[in-house]
């Protein structure tokens, strides 16, 4: 089998499984857990073997860049939507790690979700997510990448709201969804501008040479390249919980543990970093974008590590620890240490998956270490913290406990005015306002009932 076909199989298998499962579901059919479990294991076995063969073949034949073009989905005048996949030295390791980690988590979930009413839904979404993630990492153009990007986003949101009968998961899922949407706007605008200014948004059209060390071949003003790069940095920040979008990661912990692992430890959050690595030549020529990536990365890392220090629950603590490392990965990319960044991404993804899957062990682990250490664990939080005078220490603690006041700022200065504006506009729509608060009230009531 040619490497091209293998690549196609890799990307399309989870999609086919998802489609089959969803059609069955929509037709009112049902599949026993055993069958879902076998299918899931089979899919990831195929994917893992496929990825190995693909890697081996590419290595053997010395091919570092593999393209599969299926032509255009549609063409309108000068615009064509290219259906083209790409695997190179950047995407292969990430594709491989995606397949392995999703497989491990899938296998974990078969046991973990046994008898849960949402069993079917979970695996449906897991396959869709795998497809979306593979599409992001193998898309040969921004146009196609957006497709995968959105799939990853929507599955992420649906899994945060997995426990639909409680109010909090639904509320937090909605918040994450809104954050994603805002961040995705940047990406959409970037794609439009790329087409508008340069007539292309495919990797082939935008860059030449092989990763790493590829260069852009866009003919245009430095400012326009810079604008596109900056927009994409914001888009990447949304997915990776960085900079202005740094507050959603803890909210994503409402879902079942394995989905937290695969999305927020392993794959989904690293998609932003992947995007930056891919478009790296663009911000290499724009000091604004470079500075922005470094600034966003470092400030998020600092904020993340500070907040992490005060988190008293297993998952939030891990979420901020992830965010810290993601910030560093962003900074590494900004500094141009791309090879190191990709190693960091892969290594970090594996470690966090394990840590997320093991969050329920926190209690046992801590007690064992405590006993083995003879009942005395070295106190933490006494090194850096002690450098500051007492007053500043407490201020920093307060700042960290308030999660950098991120939610307060967002709620009070962005969401509240937005809602106020919407309410003002409602005067043009008589009857709307009467529905508004009442609906909210019903929502809160059902929440009390659930809790």
């Amino acid at each position, binding site marked *: 089998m040619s490497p091209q076909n293998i690549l196609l199989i890799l990307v399309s298998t989870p999609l086919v499984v998802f489609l089959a499962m969803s059609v069955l579901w929509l037709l009112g059919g049902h599949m026993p857990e055993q069958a879902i479990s076998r299918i899931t294991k089979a899919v990831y076995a195929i994917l893992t073997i496929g990825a190995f063969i693909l890697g081996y073949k590419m290595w053997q034949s010395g091919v570092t860049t593999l393209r599969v073009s299926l032509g255009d989905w549609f063409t309108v005048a000068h615009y064509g939507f290219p259906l083209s996949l790409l695997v190179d030295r950047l995407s292969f390791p990430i594709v491989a790690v995606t397949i392995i980690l999703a497989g491990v988590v899938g296998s974990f979930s078969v046991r973990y979700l046994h008898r849960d009413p949402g069993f079917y839904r979970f695996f449906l979404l897991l396959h869709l997510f795998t497809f979306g993630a593979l599409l992001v990492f193998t898309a040969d153009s921004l146009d196609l990448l957006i497709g995968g990007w959105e799939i990853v986003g929507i599955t992420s949101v649906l899994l945060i709201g997995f426990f639909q009968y409680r109010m909090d998961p639904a509320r937090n899922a909605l918040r994450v969804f809104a954050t994603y949407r805002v961040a995705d706007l940047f990406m959409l605008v970037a794609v439009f501008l790329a087409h508008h200014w340069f007539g292309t948004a495919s990797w082939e059209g935008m860059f030449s040479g092989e990763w790493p060390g590829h260069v852009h071949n866009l003919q245009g003003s430095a400012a326009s390249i810079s604008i596109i790069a900056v927009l994409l940095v914001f888009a990447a920040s949304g997915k990776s919980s960085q900079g202005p979008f740094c507050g959603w990661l803890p909210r994503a912990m409402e879902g079942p543990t394995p989905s937290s692992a695969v999305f927020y430890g392993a794959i989904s959050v690293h998609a932003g970093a992947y995007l930056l690595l891919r478009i790296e030549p663009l911000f290499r020529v724009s000091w604004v974008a470079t500075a922005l990536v470094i600034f966003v990365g470092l400030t998020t890392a600092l904020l993340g590590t500070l907040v992490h220090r005060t988190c008293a629950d297993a*998952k939030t603590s891990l979420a901020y620890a992830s965010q810290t490392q993601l910030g560093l990965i962003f900074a590494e990319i900004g500094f141009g240490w791309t090879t190191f960044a990709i190693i960091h991404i892969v*290594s970090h993804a594996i*470690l966090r998956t394990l840590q997320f899957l*093991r969050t329920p062990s926190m209690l046992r682990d801590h007690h064992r270490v405590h006993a083995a250490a003879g009942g005395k*664990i070295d106190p933490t939080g006494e090194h850096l913290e002690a450098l500051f005078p007492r007053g500043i220490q*407490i201020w920093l603690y*307060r700042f960290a406990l308030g999660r950098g006041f991120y939610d307060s700022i967002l709620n009070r200065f962005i969401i509240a005015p937005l809602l106020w504006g919407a309410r003002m506009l409602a005067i043009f729509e008589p009857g709307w306002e009467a529905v508004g608060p009442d609906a909210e009230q019903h929502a809160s009531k059902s929440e009390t009932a659930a*809790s």
Partner: protein
Amino acid sequence: MSTHNHSDTCDHSHPQGGHAPGDPVGHLRHVVDHAAHFLPTQGPIGVFVHHNTLHSLQNKPFEEAVLEGAKLFGAEPYMAEEAYQSEHARGRILNEDIDDTLRREPDAEIIVGRLTRRQLRRVLLIPGVRRVNGINVSWQIEEGDWLTSFRHDLPAAAARALANDTPQALWDVCKKRAKLQPAPPPAKPVRPRDAVLARHGIDMDAIIHPPLIRLTGAYLDQGIAYWPMPLREEGLLKAARKIMPQPLALFPAHLTSVAEAFVQQEAKQMSAEAVVMDALEKLAVPQDQWDDYIVQELLALRGWAGMVRMLENDVTLAPHDRVKCSIMDFLALRLTYTVAALQDIVGDTTSWHSFQLPPPRFDPLAHIGRIFDVAQLLGLSSDTLRSLSDEEWDRLDEEIIACNETERRRLLHIAYERRHERRILIPLARHRSLPSIQPESDRLAAQVMFCIDEREESIRRALEEVDPSIETVGAAGFFGVAIDYAGIDDADGASLCPVVVKPAHTVREVPVKEHSYVHKQRQNLRRAWAKIVRNGFISSRTLVRGWISTACLGFLSLFPLVLRVLSPLAYGRFIKRLNRAFLPEPITEFTYMRDDEASRDATTGLMRGFTTQEQADRVAGILGPAGMHKAHARLVVILGHGSTSLNNPYESAYCCGACGGRTGAPNARLFALIANRPAVREALRAKGIIVPEDTWFLGGYHDTCSDDIQFFDVDLMPESHHGDLARVRQSLDKARALGAHERSRRFAAADLESTPEIALRHVQERAEHISEPRPEYGHCTNAVAYVGRREFTRGLFMDRRAFLISYDATKDPTNEALGRVLGAVIPVCGGINLEYYFSTVDIETYGSGTKLPHNVSGLVGVMNGYQGDLRTGLPVQTVEIHEPVRILFVIESTPERLMSVVKANPELTEFVCNKWIRVATMDPDDGHIEIYRDGVFEKLEGDEEPLPVVPSSMAWYQGKMEHLGLARIDPKVAKAA
């Protein structure tokens, strides 16, 4: 015979009592104390102790308490009506159970000569009324088939009576004659939150809970946060008000004035009481409503409030950091936030009292619909209804309203329990009347003492099946030795005894002298390991160290990740092998002797070890009640139990309840050591317990999750007994595989047709599986406790649902042993059973919901998501196959003897007389059974339940997943056949 009043031992229904009106602060303290009673009493989850979820209402009869609990906590009192009806449909509840239940309720005539209350209730329960509310009634009338045809499931007589009637006519009569029910009056808001929600549509709890949870979580944290909260030594309230109002600190919407309030409180140095008083005044809560108000405020975040309360009452519950806790602090903090939010949203803090709550949903059609339904079920035609006198009609109205949904569920529940009772008691009596399945030889080959735990029932039965000359004995799993124990690998001592007992003696495991260097080595290696693991943990999460470690070392975690998930058993064994290879294990002994009366530790008040007399007392306390006075086997094995599982915050809930949620292995080991001492044997002889010289006691441990069994101090055993041990070991090996096989039938992931060896591997894999939310089913399905001689339950299949307590009434003329046994087992088994009952009937309120999104917070509990309330009770994965019935105690004694013991102990009186458990006695002489009902004992009659006889346990359960009834296991049947 035994009618008596309910005890008033813990009546706290009068909080105002005993306080002068002039002392509001004293009154406040009293009110808060009283309110805190209703909080969940679950301590840090590392030590999970089962207890009655409604412990605070245990002074009331069960049926009253569940209703009061339902109102107070917004919970369900019983299973859903549909659940009982489907149990009826599958034959778990029979018609005669319902008839009997109704016969025990007072009857009355409703329509003279035509209808009695019993007849009415009978049809209301089964086939039951259709679910009606105002909305669906109108729909059924207008769109559905209510007016076109009668119900299709009518009893034949009713259908005949209605043959010439039309639904339309019947409906018209009902509509015309039914008394218009008055709408319920709108309730007054108890908390500002309810009022604000009704008026402004803003949920104040959603505003104030996140900061409260974050503060309390950080305050109680036992070691998750890298940076512990500063100022914790000053208490929650002071720490919060010094930390929160920092310059430039941004508060969430509606809470901006909290900063100012904190600053003022701090400036005035207000105590928590003063803050609460101040808030009550601002909120204009009159003194006589403080109680209701504070109960509701505390219950709004009951998990966290309960944890604060538990740690306030007993600071030693905190696993690592002992923090000063006070429920008054918590309440003061909560009210400060409440006042601030209320002020911001409403503009003042008193007008909320006048806000109207939304009226409860009410539709008069619902009542008419119900009468319509009832008339059909009873075959009351429109003519009959029309001819009723007003008086009769009124009575019909009232009776239908009185038998509302809760009442129907209560009656159905009693019927549900009755069938369970009969399916246990009748076969049990039959089994007893048949010849006992006794060991064949004169002297037993061995006796094996297990914990009374119902999970040990299967392995006990299997062991006796494998080797009929072995007898098993059941005693509470701390084996009478309440100790504070630390093993060589433990940092601190832990109490190994029921939680109600405070141990007074310490026992330590130490390496034997020759091995102290091995111990040293081991400790050093463990210290090094702890350092590496701890550093790895921290460095993977911080900024600079994390940069290096995640980037470089993350790859290494691929191996544990993949292997743990894909091949858990092999990986677990690999780790164990590594441990054995690199971590030397010294031979150890216990320090348990005390010669010196004054060796009491000045700080802890604990005494080191036991004197010989104390040791003999402990041994006699176990052997005596169990009837082991003489003729012991050559080998007596004492098996403690515990449970190990991975990735499971509830691990402790599976351990030994009699050891306070820990393992009973050290107790078993200690008991054997003590019982082997010649001096103790000497002292026992004086108590009438004669242990033969050639009897050897051996301690051991049984893991109920992986079914592993190990023995202690085998090296001390005389060579002459090695043969006995080999035999017992072989039999136990077979028995544990059989036990594993039997319990695997409940697991969907296990193959129903597999062999015992495969089943054993399966359960071992479960214990090593990090993705397994049900490593074992714990106490799930528990329903019975048998206190009596083993010979009458020997060879009886009880489906791992019965606690088996060995007690020999014939050797206990004074009932002293009975008092001791019941005093220990009724609270332990009753507590376990009631926790399972409540978690099952309301998994979200009394239980902790599904385990899947649980997030360990502060090492003290679990919450949903990133900021939620602490979840208490049991998760759905633990209770999903449980049958919520109150535990049925079958006690081998007479009613008089039993009640004399029960009445002497207020706690037992509460359990028995308030019917939190069901009780029956089995006569020690002739075996007849009497059942306790409302103060009197009734003889068991009837014989409708069979006792199947099968050649082996496996023949009875193989291929079945559901609950199974009792069966007599008689191998001779197979030989005969």
